[in-house]
C-alpha cells in the first residue's frame, strides 16, 4: 500500500535529518505548532493525503520535514498567523491497532479518514471517533475525511451520511482526493481555522 505518484520530491523538502532547530520556533499565539494524527482503516489513503499535502504545498520558504512517516508543514493563514502541522502517520495494519492510543495521546488534531467506496472503512471511522471521544484530549479538533472522491462511480458511502455523522459529533467534514489533490489544502486550512487559540498552545 502506498501512493503512486506521491513520492516526496528530493528537492521539495529536506530529509528529516537536516531539520535542525525545533527549539527556535517556540510556539506562541501567532505561530501555532500542532500535533496531528491520522486514523482510519488500512488503505483508505492516510499516507497519501499527508504526502500530497506536504509535497503539494510547494513554497521554498516554508520549512518542511519529509521523513518516511513523520512530516511537518507550515501554512500561513490570512490573518498573518502560521500553523505548523506535525503529522504523525500511524501504522495501519491490524496487528498495530492496539498501539493507536500511544500516538493520539496529546494530539491537538485528529484526521479520521475513510474511503468513500468502502462502507467498512466508514464504520471503522466511526469507531475511531468514539475511541477519541473517550480517550483523546478533550479539546481535540476532529475532522472526518471521505477520501478517494475521484472514484465517485464506485461510491458506496453517500456524502450525506458523512455530513450527518460529522454534524452529530461536532466534527468538520470534507471529501478529498489524494490522487487529484482535490480539497487536500482546504482540509488543512479548515482545520487551522478551527484550532483554539489560547495564549499558549503546544
Amino acid at each position: 500500500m502506498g501512493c503512486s505518484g506521491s513520492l516526496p520530491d528530493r528537492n521539495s523538502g529536506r530529509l528529516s535529518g537536516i531539520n535542525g532547530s525545533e527549539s527556535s520556533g517556540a510556539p506562541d499565539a501567532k505561530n501555532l505548532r500542532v500535533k496531528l494524527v491520522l486514523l482510519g482503516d488500512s488503505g483508505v489513503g492516510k499516507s497519501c493525503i499527508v504526502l500530497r499535502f506536504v509535497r503539494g504545498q510547494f513554497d521554498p520558504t516554508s520549512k518542511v520535514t519529509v521523513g518516511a512517516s513523520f512530516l511537518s508543514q507550515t501554512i500561513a493563514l490570512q490573518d498573518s498567523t502560521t500553523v505548523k502541522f506535525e503529522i504523525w502517520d500511524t501504522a495501519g495494519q491490524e496487528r498495530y491497532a492496539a498501539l493507536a492510543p500511544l500516538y493520539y495521546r496529546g494530539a491537538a488534531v485528529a484526521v479520521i479518514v475513510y474511503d468513500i467506496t468502502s462502507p467498512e472503512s466508514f464504520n471503522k471511522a466511526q469507531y475511531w471517533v468514539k475511541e477519541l471521544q473517550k480517550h483523546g484530549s478533550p479539546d481535540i479538533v476532529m475532522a472526518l475525511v471521505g477520501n478517494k472522491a475521484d472514484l465517485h462511480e464506485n461510491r458506496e458511502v453517500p456524502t450525506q451520511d458523512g455530513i450527518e455523522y460529522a454534524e452529530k459529533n461536532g466534527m468538520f467534514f470534507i471529501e478529498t482526493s489524494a490522487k487529484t489533490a482535490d480539497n487536500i489544502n482546504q482540509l488543512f486550512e479548515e482545520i487551522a481555522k478551527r484550532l483554539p487559540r489560547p495564549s499558549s498552545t503546544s
Partner: protein
Amino acid sequence: MDPSSSSSAQSVTFYDFLDRMRNPASLDLVRSIKSFIVSFSFYTANPENDGKRVQEFYLTMEGAIRDHPLWVGATEEEIDSALEGLEKYVMTKLFSRTFSSTPEDVKIDQEIYEKICLLQTFLRPEHLDIPVVLQNEASWLLAEKELQKMNTVKAPREKLLCIMNCCRVISNLLLNASMSENMVLAGADDFLPVLIYVMIKASSPCLNYQKKFIDLDTWKSILANPPQLHSNLKFIQLYRRQTKLVSEAAYYFTNLVSAKTFVVDLNAKSLSIEEIEFEENMQAARLANKVPQVEVSSSSNDFKALGDVRGPGPSGRIHGDGIHTSGGYNYPFMEAEADDLTVGDVERLLRVYKDVVSKYTSLCRSVRHISLTKTVPSIPGSEGKNVLLTCPTEKSTSIDEKREDDRGSEKGLPGSPGPPGTANDDLEKGLPGSPRSANDDVQKESARS
C-alpha cells in the same frame, strides 16, 4: 543530527555551562543545583515523583538563569544551551538514583529481554511483512548500533539522540528505497515493522553469541549490560526536558515505545506465522536457553540406548526432537580450542565438567536399572536449571559498577553543599564527563552529523 540544536553547539554548550558555573558569580546557581541533587538522597526512589521534581527544577532554574547577571543579553539559544548543560549535569549526578530505580523496572527490563531472546531465535522479517526491498543488512546494522548506544550514555538528551539517529537511518532507508527501487512509500506501515525488527536485533546479544562465536569476555560484558529498553524509555520520558520531547523527537520516541509495547504483548496473532509454528519455536527457544539436567550429547551411545529401551513415554518428549542438544550454548566449551581458554575459565569448566559427570553417572544407573526391571523410571532432576550467565540478580550491581567506571565516579559529590570556597571545585571534580570524556562526546557527535 541533534533533536534540538546543532551537535557542535551542543558540546560547546556543556563546556560553556561548566565554565559559567565555575564563575564565582554563579555561586547561587551552583548552590541550588547541589542542594537539589543532595535532596534526592533523603528519599527513596519514586520515579513519577522524581520526574516531576526534576522537571520543576528545570523550570525553576530556567527562570533563575534568565534573570541571572551572567546571562544578561543572552540569546534564546544560549539560554537553551545552559539548560541542556543543566540537564546533563543533574541527570548524570542522579543517574544511579533514577535509572531503573525500582524492582519493578528491573523486572520489566528482564522480562522484555528474555522475550526478545526467545523471539530472536526464529523471527524473520517476513513475520512482520517487511518488504524485501527494505531488508537492507547494512542499514539495519547501522540502526541497531545507534540504538545500542543508548545503553552507553547517561544524559536523557543523549539517550534520546540515539533513538533519533536509529529512526533516521530507518526513515532514510525507506525514502531511498522509494526513490531508487520504485517502491511506493507506505509511511508508518513500513517504518514501524522495521523499527520493531531492528529493536529486537539490537537487544538480543544472545543471537550474536550463537551465530558468530564471539569471545567469552565480550559475551560476558554483553550479559552484564543487557539492554534496558523499558528503563531507558522511562528515563527519557521522565527526565528529558519536557519542552524537548516534542515534534520529531516525540514521534520517534513514541514509535520506540510502541515497538516495545508490541513486543511485550506479542503472541502468535501479532505475526504472520502459524500459531503452532510460533508456539513450537518459542518452546524450542526456551529449551535452548536452559541446560536441562538430564541432557547428554546426542551422540552418546548410552543416550541412544536409553531412547531405544525406553520407548514412548511422558518424558520421551524432552528428548524427542533433539533441538536443545545443539550448539555451544549449553556446553559453552564445545567449540573452544585449548588456546582459547584462560585461567578464569577453569572455575566454570570444572562446574560444567562436574555437571556432566553427575548426569552421566545417574544416566548409567538408570540404564542399568532399566535393563534389570524393564520399566521406565522417571529421570531425576528433569525439571532443568538455568545455568547460563544470564542470571538476573547479578546483573544490576555489575551494571552500576561498570557505568561508574566508564564515566567517572559519582562519588566525588559531597554529602552536603560545601563551604562557599570549595563549591566550584566540587562541581568540577564531580563532573560527569571530565574534560577527556566530554571531548570524546564532541568527537562522537561530530562524527555522527
